[in-house]
């Protein structure tokens, strides 16, 4: 699998996700600077976490307008898979690749720590290594992860099975204190209609080694390799 990881001014988890990809694929991803409207063909485009443009104005808004994102939109339209994590989720949502928005966390605070996620479907490029309904533990680290979509959009998302992950308790029960940010319907990650684009707030790339927070995130990268190689 050939992956491209975008880098914006203020990106800061690009190294984490590049390392996760390298661990799983034994191949360094290509790092793509935001000003490059053209980059080598890739099997997967990753928009990493961080504070692109300082998260000023709205998280992801300025990065969404960069030349590289115009190209990402073109390729996504052709079916090239795109993974946006955290700030990357915010960026691809601002860019219109996914519906909805990410608002300030309910408590208005940055929150970092492990959360539990219920994998809503094991049937996608991104989740084929997980069982539908499986609970995994991965960290979050964000101040704006409170997913919101209007009622109509939400209904469409749910009807078409576009919710990828939901926050839950360790036993898989939805919501309650398992939801760290107030996301509507406990949504932690969503797909586009074709399930070729995934945006998620939690960080699977920080859950790939048992000594450093557990290995539950590894399956996502392994699944991608399997699907895309």
């Amino acid at each position, binding site marked *: 699998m050939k992956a491209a990881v975008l880098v914006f001014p203020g990106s800061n988890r690009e190294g984490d996700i590049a390392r996760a990809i390298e661990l799983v694929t034994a191949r360094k991803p290509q790092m793509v600077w935001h000003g490059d409207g053209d980059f080598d063909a890739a099997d997967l485009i990753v928009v990493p976490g961080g504070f692109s443009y300082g998260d000023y*104005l*709205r998280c992801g*808004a*300025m990065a969404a*307008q960069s030349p590289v994102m115009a190209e990402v939109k073109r390729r996504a339209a052709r079916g090239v898979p795109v993974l946006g994590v955290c700030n990357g989720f915010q960026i691809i949502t*601002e860019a219109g690749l996914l519906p*909805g*928005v990410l*608002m*300030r*966390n*309910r408590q*208005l605070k940055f929150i970092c720590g492990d959360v539990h996620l219920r994998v809503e479907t094991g049937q996608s490029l991104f989740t084929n290594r997980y069982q539908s309904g499986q609970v995994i533990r991965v960290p979050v680290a964000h101040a704006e992860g*409170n997913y*919101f979509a*209007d009622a109509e959009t939400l209904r469409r998302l749910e009807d078409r099975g576009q919710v990828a992950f939901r926050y839950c308790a360790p036993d898989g029960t939805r919501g309650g204190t398992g939801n760290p940010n*107030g996301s509507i319907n406990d949504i932690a990650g969503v797909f586009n209609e074709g399930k070729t684009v995934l945006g998620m707030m939690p960080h699977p790339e920080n859950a790939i080694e048992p000594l450093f927070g557990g290995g539950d995130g590894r399956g996502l990268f392994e699944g991608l390799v399997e699907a895309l190689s």
Partner: protein
Amino acid sequence: MKARVHVTLKNGVLDPQGKAIGHSLNRLGFPEVGEVRQGKFIELELAGTDAAAARTRLDEMCRKLLANTVIENYSIEILS
């Protein structure tokens, strides 16, 4: 020229910041405070003197960057 853009959340969109502010004010001894909504405004210095043209450009800036029209409304004022 100087212009000012106000960006507000659309009705029906939950405003966690506004809600928290309202809560805090109630607790701080301001029970008279009901609903609170927070927005932002952006003041811009613009080259040029044609107010109508500026307004068109500002509208473009809002749609492209300053507001997320999925959840936000915006309004434009030319100040001088």
